[in-house]
């Protein structure tokens, strides 16, 4: 299997300005050394809480956040090269959480799609109308909707339009940034199913950024768990949900409320955990140390290395092979 996207030690640091002269005094390490790959036709999910750096990582992959360190390769070519020669937009696209905000309120659905097709000369001018209808059909919308404005559509329909716009450039890779979390539960499934169909039909690969693990479990091939700008654990979907090896992954899994009145174990009245690490001055050692129930002195001084615990399953935890910890994490869910 070839990899569409190769991310090696990606860093996205934002300058922190302060004082009378607004000088740069520090860097906020939103993404701090992240490596993963997205295979062709693969769906890789990026999960974590707000401030984990997952969205910034996604934005960096399509050139919307500055890459301040590391390498990103898209289809064998460096991201910077792809940006410079203008091939990036044709290759990688993004769909956002809020489809209302991401569609120009003064353009009809048809105008949105026509613009992309003509600017990039995807099809001959006379074929544009036909292609718009095809794109709408591809995302399950009737061609009449081309004449509508975004505010005349429902949330689910808008998200389909946003997907159609991304598809218009015929990309290989799409960053899906929380694209179902603003939708009603009954509609979420429509969009998730659509993404899977499109992947099969158009050979796409996705980076699926989400916080809802039940959706992630459904859609992904691989799952990458981020915390404080770093990757805690990465594994195939089945491995990660069946046998998480990082305490943070375990905490995430244990926090999903189950729609079953007899299963109350995931509702816990614990004292609040410590705040996520300050991106400007992360603590020495493991980023998760303050919250981790298993943290030792070693965790507070040395940053854990990322090690493979089985084929394709990596974890960044000093105690990944400690039997006591493994036992505590084992019955995660189900």
């Amino acid at each position, binding site marked *: 299997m070839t990899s569409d996207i190769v991310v090696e030690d990606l860093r996205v640091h*934002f300058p922190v300005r302060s004082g009378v002269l607004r000088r740069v005094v520090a860097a*906020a390490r*939103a993404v701090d050394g992240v490596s993963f790959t997205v295979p062709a036709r693969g769906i890789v999910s990026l999960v974590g*809480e*707000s*401030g*984990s*750096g*997952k*969205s*910034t990582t996604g934005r960096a992959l*399509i*050139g*919307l956040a500055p890459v301040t360190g590391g390498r990103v390769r898209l289809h064998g070519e460096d991201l910077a090269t792809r940006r410079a020669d*203008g091939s*990036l*937009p*044709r290759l990688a*696209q*993004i769909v*956002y*959480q*809020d489809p209302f*905000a*991401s*569609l*120009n*309120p*003064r353009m009809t659905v048809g105008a949105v799609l026509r*613009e*992309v097709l003509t*600017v*990039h000369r995807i099809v001959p001018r006379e074929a544009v109308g036909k292609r718009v209808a095809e794109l709408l059909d591809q995302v399950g919308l009737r061609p009449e909707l081309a004449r*509508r*404005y975004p*505010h*005349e559509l429902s*949330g689910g329909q808008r998200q389909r339009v*946003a997907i159609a*716009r991304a598809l218009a*450039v015929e990309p290989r890779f799409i960053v899906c*940034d*929380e694209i179902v*979390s*603003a*939708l*009603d*539960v009954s509609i979420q499934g429509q969009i998730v199913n659509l993404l899977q169909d499109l992947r099969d039909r158009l050979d796409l690969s996705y980076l699926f950024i989400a*916080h809802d693990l039940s959706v992630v479990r459904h859609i992904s091939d691989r799952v990458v768990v981020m915390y404080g700008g770093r990757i805690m654990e990465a594994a195939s979907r089945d491995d990660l949900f069946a046998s998480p090896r990082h305490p943070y992954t375990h905490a995430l899994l244990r926090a999903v409320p189950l729609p079953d009145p007899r299963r109350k174990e995931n509702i816990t009245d614990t004292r609040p955990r410590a705040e996520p690490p300050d*991106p400007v001055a992360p603590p020495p050692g493991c980023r998760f140390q303050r919250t981790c129930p298993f943290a030792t002195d070693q965790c507070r001084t040395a940053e854990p290395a990322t090690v493979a615990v089985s084929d394709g399953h990596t974890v960044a935890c000093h105690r990944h092979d400690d039997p006591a910890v493994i036992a505590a994490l084992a019955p995660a869910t189900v």
Partner: protein
Amino acid sequence: MDSPTALGPQSVSPARRLRLPRLTNGNATLNIGAAIVLGSVLLALLAPWLAPYDPLRTDTSALGLGIFSPGHILGTDEVGRDILSRLLHGTRLALLVAVVPTLFALLVGGCLGLLAGYVGGWVDSVLMRVFDVMFSFPGILFALGIGVALGPGLTSMIIAMVVVTVPEFGRIVRGAVLGLKQEQYVEAARALGFSHSRVAFRHVTPNLLGSTIVFATLQTGRNVILSSSLAFLGLGAQPPTPDWGQMLSGGRSLLLTAPHVATIPGLAIVVLAVGFNLLGDGVRDRLDPRARRTRP
């Protein structure tokens, strides 16, 4: 940084999603405003045919005649000119000095604002400091200075008014552009590989046209007052040109004996300013996204 991750389906509160019924009837506002402005334009165009007398003709036998005097419905002024005729002819000048400076200021200020807001960086800093300086001379004072420097007259007054209002347009447009640059659809347009000029003119500009047009209309209303103030201070069109501000100023000497000489042109100024203000408010109500659901 990350966008908020957990915006659920309830992130917009129902009360806010519901369209609140409009409290003032936007259509009435718009219609009255449009009627006043269009009516003024019509009067200005037809002034030569409607006016009973030559606005410049003085009649020493009829100084300061009152309202409803025979032959002079609105009376005569301090040198015996027919007030109605002067009022009608003055409409042309009033509209000219209200609309023309707005158009120029809109063009210049709009472009500078778009440039400052979209490009940002040092271009923005320099332009904003220049606007700050211009802004520090409150409207009429700045216009006064320029009017004095260029010598009194119509052209210098229009130039003065343009210079005064350019920074206002610049700031309004820049602020709107800065807001729009944060919009996700603008970022999406960049991600789709569109050029800067396409994003600026196809995606940003159409979305700030509405608010800019509203501001321009309201500014035209303010220009009616600003121009009459400058004329009152003697910086506009020079006598004996029929000008409402001039007429008002001239009527001051007759306040005791013939108050209508100063009152009537004042009322005309108020009506025209009200017209533009209503028009602006009406257009704003129309453009309010909450009030709009069907296709524009």
